[in-house]
């Protein structure tokens, strides 16, 4: 067993566990690779925290047949490989595989999100028949000024009655 407990640190030396007093300072590795690794992990944690903060998404991750003990750890585990160049990508996962959501357009403006979803399939039509919940995760990156955080991740649950639904039919 190794790791820190209160003022002590356990280390494995020559196959035996040795207890040391905890050092007052740790030398933090400042190599480019170590810094990239830390910022990637921080981003993954920020994303996982936001997704996990939505109870319904947390429950879906919890009930999925995936490796990992708790929802939060699963979100981290299944998202780490999709972070590229210190940035989340559209391959990152907010929810485990489900009924196909066929989005034909998604536009973002200052105060709202406008999306078109194809309701051709019976299953999706049934799911999007109120009541239902919609989830939006917004990841902001590439800051304009250094005085703001390097990134922000917001997750939000929106009940169907908050959404302005417009259905159209192809004739």
């Amino acid at each position: 067993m190794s790791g820190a407990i209160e003022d002590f640190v356990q280390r494995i030396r020559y196959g035996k566990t040795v207890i040391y007093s905890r050092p007052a300072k740790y030398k933090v590795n400042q190599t480019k690779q170590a810094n990239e690794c830390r910022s990637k992990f921080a981003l993954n944690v920020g994303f996982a925290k936001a997704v996990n903060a939505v109870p319904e998404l947390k429950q879906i991750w919890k009930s999925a047949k995936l490796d990992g003990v708790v929802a939060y750890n699963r979100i981290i585990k299944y998202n780490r490989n999709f972070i590229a160049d210190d940035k989340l990508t559209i391959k990152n996962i907010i929810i485990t595989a489900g009924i196909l959501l066929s989005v034909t357009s998604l536009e973002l403006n200052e105060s709202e999100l406008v999306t078109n979803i194809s309701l051709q399939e019976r299953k999706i039509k049934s799911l999007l028949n109120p009541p239902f919940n919609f989830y939006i995760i917004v990841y902001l990156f590439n800051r304009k000024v250094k005085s703001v955080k390097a990134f922000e991740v917001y997750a939000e649950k929106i009940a169907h009655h908050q959404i302005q639904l417009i259905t159209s039919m192809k004739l």
Partner: protein
Amino acid sequence: MIPLNSKIAAKMDRYNGAIVFVAASKQTFKKNETYWTSMFGKEFQL
């Protein structure tokens, strides 16, 4: 049309990029089962 949280809207002008992920779920009252969709993500230049 889905309203954006004012917190998000207020911070959007401080960044040059955004990725928006969306998904939906439904809970049935009779069987208390949850169904959910796959997700969709799109990148935007702000």
